[in-house]
């Protein structure tokens, strides 16, 4: 009787593995199959010559160029906002905070990491409305607001990877320089941070991936369908994930749909590349960022 149950478990597990693999590979294969045809410089630059588009001499109307530039600007903006404050917070929690304070802050950042991205987006939108009303009527949902909201979204990732990277250093590494008379800060700057650099960098790459893929935050905070390359951080902009979302419901011609497939494939490859990079730099940390057990 027990034997039969055990054999059933083996069969069951193999079936589950097969179901999941089949599901994932059919998603990837479908996109590759449909999108490969659209993968061409024309997908990004449309009818404009690539050089003129990059130099901003000519505006691209029928290509993804503005969306790609928008996504790049968005990612660099939000990561550069989140990075210094995230690193500093991670260092404080790992090295300076005492046990009880650390516990309280950990809870707060666990909650921040769990807040749905649409709620963070709504917060960004409310912030823009608030600033518009009370400070300057020129503030509206724009690149800066999106960058700020996305920075809030990825902050817990950066904090947590920094914190884990520092906390997982062995006591030998931690104590040697101190025993030689280094101060706490010297130990941190010359020993602990260099030792945990890989962990911190993989956290940054994960944050970049999260910024590049997120759609819910930006759709409430300033992304639009057609804006061209944004002139300043106070202007609306285009982005890849939003373009994919928009095309999926509003496409009018087969060519537009083709572009949508191409954009989806482009975004997928970008995110998988970033993920693989983070993984190569530091194994395991990648998904630990979701929750620290």
């Amino acid at each position, binding site marked *: 009787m027990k034997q039969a149950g055990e054999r059933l478990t083996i069969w069951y597990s193999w079936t589950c593995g097969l179901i999941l693999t089949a599901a994932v590979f059919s998603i990837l294969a479908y996109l590759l199959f449909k999108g490969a045809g659209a993968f061409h410089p024309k997908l990004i630059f449309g009818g404009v010559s690539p050089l003129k588009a990059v130099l901003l001499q000519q505006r691209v109307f029928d290509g993804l160029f503005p969306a790609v530039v928008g996504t790049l600007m968005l990612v660099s903006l939000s990561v550069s906002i989140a990075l210094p*404050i995230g690193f500093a917070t991670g260092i404080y929690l790992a090295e300076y905070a005492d046990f009880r304070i650390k516990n309280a802050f950990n809870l707060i950042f666990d909650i921040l990491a*769990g807040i749905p991205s649409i709620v963070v987006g709504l917060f960004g939108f409310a912030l823009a409305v608030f600033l518009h009303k009370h400070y300057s009527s020129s503030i509206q949902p724009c690149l800066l607001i999106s960058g700020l909201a996305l920075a809030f979204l990825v902050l817990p990732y950066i904090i947590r990877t920094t914190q884990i990277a520092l906390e997982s250093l062995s006591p030998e590494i931690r104590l040697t320089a101190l025993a030689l008379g280094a101060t706490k800060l010297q130990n941190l700057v010359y020993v602990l941070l260099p030792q945990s650099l890989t962990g911190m960098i993989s956290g940054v790459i994960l944050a970049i991936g999260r910024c590049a893929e997120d759609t819910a935050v930006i759709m409430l905070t300033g992304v639009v369908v057609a804006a061209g390359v944004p002139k300043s951080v106070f202007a609306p902009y285009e982005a890849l994930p939003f373009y994919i979302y928009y095309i999926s419901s509003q496409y009018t011609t087969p060519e537009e749909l083709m572009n949508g497939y191409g954009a989806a494939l482009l975004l997928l490859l970008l995110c998988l590349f970033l993920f693989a990079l983070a993984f190569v730099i530091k194994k395991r940390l990648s998904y630990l960022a979701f929750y620290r057990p």
Partner: protein
Amino acid sequence: MNNWKERGIEKIFLLSTIISSSITLLILGFMAYMALPLLRGGLFRLLTEPWMPQQGFYGIYPMIVGTSVISLLSLLIAFPVSLGCSFLISSIGPKSLSAVFRRIVQMMTGIPTVIYGFVGIFLLVPLIREFFQGGSGMCILTAALMLGVLISPTMILFFCDSFDRVPRSYIDAADSLGANRLQTLLYVILPSAREGIVIGVLLAFGRAMGDTLVSLMIAGNSIAEPKSILDSVRTLTAHIALVIAADYESPEFRSIFACGLVLYLFITIVILAVRRLAFRKSEERA
């Protein structure tokens, strides 16, 4: 001089910690403040009334039902599959295959959610429409299936992690009593990894609730109360994305903050439960 610098930098670190943690509270504050006029009208009414802006009803009840039904169903679909997959990775599959499979699952966490929604519209929705002969194909079932794929990696990786953390001595004891790998898994590892499994399920549930794009794109966004899993629904997250009111004082606009507040509070409960479980487990070990 040196001492002064050390303390100054520590203060800077502390200050950024305070700033970043205040964001968590600031979001809660904003949601509560903006939803306040609606909450004054009665919390019970808000949570139980239908959504009919023309008739003056701004309740979010249909959306709460939509979110609960979709995330529970996706959990129901994904949990058994995830458990099987984690068995396969941690002891049933051959070592090399398990390693590859684990990589695939980890890679899944890197797939953008908008991709799941996009493929859902063009691949899964037509399939469901054909299979059930009728409707648009955008329904609870479609969204729950896609969300199931989205949340499986969270569960699988947590299950495997908690299996790995079962003390070596337990496994050695089972080995020396003559148990094979599967018996060790079923009768030793599984019972002592119970908390880890619950934590994985809770986190996946939170992920399913908080996801916007999949339900927005393939659940159909109808505001009627669903009668079967082939009906279309609107989730809280999709509702926030869809209601774009021009008038910032209108009850429509206020109601999306009520949705945000509900989601926020729900996630807080999930995180508290997870931490409590994790804490209990680590105390038991110590």
